């Protein structure tokens, strides 16, 4: 059994253990969940020891026969694109478990679903077989649906159903594209490497149709304007730990899939580069403007996610080294930033029971620790130098400029809009007149402090020493962009 299989089995094992527990031992269950999260985290980060950044291809590969008649196999492996995602996913899952202290009953089912979700997400990032990928992709839906529908806010049923329908709708296109490809290709195998070899040789028209299917499937998840309708509702209604996972990792599954598919269908991507950059820039500005208009804090962060995933798409559409590096870095940056923000705002919501920004005021006097960490996350969102957001946006900007010239100026406009709402929010939350209702709010407790500091420390660390992350992705990015001759 390889380390990647172990990585998938650890959370599943934890889930099984929780299943076996009686439902009234809440502390025990939380303990098991925490230990499992930590173990998964350790397993994932131990990958760093064996990972050779110089090798561009798949590492830690392991393959098991699964269903030879269907051409499927249980193949796992990671490269420079998936490793950062795996590390991020395990980190955010651990933080989410930490932040679930005040979740409603029944906690047994909640933690069980959370761990299954973690396993499914890790499966998506490590799968090297499209059938397996699709399996894990769909598997994430089930726990998420129940997590939102059972533990969400007031409008949770609508949000959960909406989320499910949207992503299922997208998945249908994904599945169709996969099946068409499987049908066309002679090898009768779902392995990513076989797809890679075969698909690139297809005529451009066929590639284009197949890629459009993928684009819709992954675009819903990412999300890309105009198929982002599920996102604001789901993010707002989901409980905070689930919001962390939703915007921190679930969205990255979309962009990760798009990256994989782009490598598979180079002609189609080249032909659709213009469409991609247009969608990216529209998402960027559209999301930013709507975020600026929200007075609901969670809705604001949700729309800002649309905007920031637009930056990822700009990087992917540039198809050069700087752009792709920017895309991967932005995936990491947004995971950390959005995770930290949903965490902190969620914790604040537990104390004040309001998400309306107009109700907040002068929190810096009452809750200085909260103020510092939130401000840090917000400035990272704007892309202030010294935070990981800057590294990501700079790469995307350079890559975009190399390919698209002055059109990239719109990326700057998007950054300015994000500065507008981020600074506005910081100002509203922390400064201003002292209100009676805001006077007796407890500051962050120790466990909350640990969870939030881990994320903000990551933001600052990668901002000051970006080489740590850039080194991981360099090999894969170079190989990828070489495919497009840039």
């Amino acid at each position: 059994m390889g380390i990647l299989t172990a990585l998938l089995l650890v959370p599943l094992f934890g889930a099984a253990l929780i299943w076996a527990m009686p439902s009234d031992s809440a502390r025990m269950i939380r303990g098991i969940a925490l230990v499992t999260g930590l173990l998964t985290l350790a397993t994932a980060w131990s990958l760093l020891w064996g990972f050779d950044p110089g090798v561009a291809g798949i590492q830690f590969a392991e393959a098991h026969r699964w269903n030879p008649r269907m051409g499927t196999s249980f193949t796992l492996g990671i490269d420079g694109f998936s490793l950062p995602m795996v590390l991020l996913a395990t980190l955010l899952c651990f933080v989410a478990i930490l932040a679930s202290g005040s979740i409603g009953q029944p906690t047994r089912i909640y933690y069980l679903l959370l761990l299954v979700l973690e396993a499914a997400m890790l499966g998506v990032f490590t799968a090297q077989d499209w059938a397996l990928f699709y399996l894990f992709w769909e598997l994430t839906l089930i726990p998420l649906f129940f997590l939102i529908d059972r533990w969400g806010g007031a409008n949770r049923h609508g949000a959960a159903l909406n989320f499910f329908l949207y992503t299922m709708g997208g998945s249908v296109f994904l599945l169709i594209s996969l099946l068409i490809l499987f049908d066309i290709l002679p090898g009768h195998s779902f392995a990513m490497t076989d797809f890679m070899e075969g698909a690139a040789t297809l005529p451009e028209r066929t590639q284009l149709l197949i890629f459009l299917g993928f684009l819709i499937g992954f675009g819903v998840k990412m999300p890309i304007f105009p198929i982002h309708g599920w996102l604001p509702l789901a993010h707002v209604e989901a409980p905070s730990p689930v919001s962390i996972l939703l915007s921190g990792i679930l969205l990255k599954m979309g962009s990760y899939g798009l990256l994989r598919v782009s490598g598979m269908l180079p002609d189609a991507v080249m032909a659709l580069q213009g469409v991609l950059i247009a969608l990216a820039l529209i998402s960027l500005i559209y999301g930013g403007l709507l975020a600026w208009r929200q007075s609901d804090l969670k809705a604001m962060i949700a729309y800002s996610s649309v905007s920031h995933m637009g930056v990822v798409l700009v990087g992917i559409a540039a198809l050069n080294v700087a752009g792709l590096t920017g895309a991967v870095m932005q995936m990491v940056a947004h995971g950390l930033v959005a995770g930290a923000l949903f965490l902190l705002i969620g914790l604040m919501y537990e104390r004040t029971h309001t998400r309306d920004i107009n109700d907040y005021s002068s929190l810096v006097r009452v809750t200085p620790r909260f103020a510092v960490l939130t401000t840090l996350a917000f400035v990272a969102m704007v892309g202030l130098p010294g935070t990981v957001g800057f590294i990501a946006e700079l790469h995307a900007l350079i890559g975009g400029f190399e390919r698209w010239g002055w059109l990239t100026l719109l990326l700057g406009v998007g950054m300015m809009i994000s500065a507008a709402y981020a600074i506005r929010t910081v100002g509203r939350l922390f400064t201003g007149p002292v209100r009676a209702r805001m006077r007796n709010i407890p500051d962050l407790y120790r466990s909350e402090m640990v969870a939030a500091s881990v994320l903000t420390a990551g933001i600052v660390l990668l901002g000051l020493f970006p080489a740590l992350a850039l080194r991981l992705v360099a090999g894969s990015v170079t190989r990828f962009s070489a495919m497009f001759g840039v």
Partner: protein
Amino acid sequence: MLHSLVWFIPLLPLLAAAWIGLCMIFGWHTGDRGERMVARSASLPMLAALLLLLLLDVEGLSGSTPGQQVFGTWLASGDYRILISFTLDALSLSLATLIALISLVTLRFSVNYMHREVGFQRFFMLLSLFCSAMLLLVLAGNSVLTFVGWEVAGVCSYLLIGYAYDRPRAILNATRVFVTNRIGDAGFILGISLSFLWVGSVEWPQLALYSVEIAPLYKGLIGMGFLIAALVKSAQLPFSPWISHALEGPTPSSALFYGSLMVHAGVYLTIRLEPLLIQLQPLLILLGLLGLLTALYGWLVGLVQSDIKSALIFSTIAQVGLMFLECASGWFDLAAWHLVLHAIWRSYQFLHAPALLQLVDGPGRRTPAWLRSRSRVYGAATQRFWLDSIADWLLLLPTRSLAQDLQDFDQRVVTRMVGLPDQAGHLNSLARWEARRQGQGVDREVGRGRGMAGRLLAWLATLLYWFEEHLVLQGAGEGLRQTLDLIGGYLKQAEDLLSEPRYLLLLIMLTFVVIV
């Protein structure tokens, strides 16, 4: 051998100034005992500089003057190089000796004069700095180093006019003098940059040597730049009025700056540029004319002054005007002699003036009868020929109203476009501040912007919000669900119908029909 120490001469008073400055910062040597220390630390370096100069003079008299001395490069960029060089010829050595001597005497005089004055240390620091600047001005081997001395002397003048900085009048006068002097600085910089451009060097000997080869127009422009600087610094027409404003400072500084040393800097510059200027007859004629006019102006205005310092200063600029006239006539040596003698005499007069006032009772000198009988000239002289008012009317008022207009434009157009809070009504009262602290009057609505960019942002955001609400969320999200509900309803009905026996039978029969 000795002349390699020449850079010590400006450096010694500079070090004295720095030392006194340190004393000021750290509060050393205050009080009566401190005064002696400060006076000594200013005078001794000056004395050393004077002795060094005298030795150089002896060397120069016994043999020949050392001439141009280069000690290294100050800065170099591309083809432009500025050297640290000193010109040691008869002119600069004699003038430097004069400066050192008069400075030393004035320093000694000030020890008693400034006794127990507020800012005793400040005065001596500035005086030492000024001496250093003047020595650098005359000894420097190129126009850039001369300009350094020129400017530092100007700054010292500004600071000493504003010596009593608690008096608004002093500050106003200091500012006026400084601003007028910037006109001359502009001319100096023009001269320096044009000599870089066309002569390729700013060293005085090179300027003299190569200026023969360049076109007359270029020569004229370079000469004009330097001459403007000279005219402003020496308070010649039409720039004369500044010098009467400059008398605000303590008497020893007036003596040193405007009576004897700084006012002659312009004449020094003119004599230094002799080789260039003799090629420019039209400019020289103009210079002579201005010198003559200034002499007349100084004489006439000086006659009607009622206080001793003003009378002295106007007669000073009259004498300096004569020096320019001499230069214009080609007698540069005469001008140099005149300069030296006048400097000594005038500093004596200025330093004596306060004591003289104590000794003499009764009204001062009366205006001569012939002048009083000519009422127009008399009136013009008492008004100093309205030069101040003309300058105000020509320069000050238009500038001020233009600034006012720009301020209005900024407030009414730019501030509103950018969306900044109005400056005029911004927190100008405690009541407003209190209201703001309580969160009143602050726009707290989300999604509203100020200024043009803010409005555009708000408008776009509203538009997109409508789109999002109606099409994306309700149209696609809710709509999808409703459609599915509808289809689900139909399917359920069909299902219900099919499960009834008669339809089941019908279906089976239909199947048979199809098979058959």
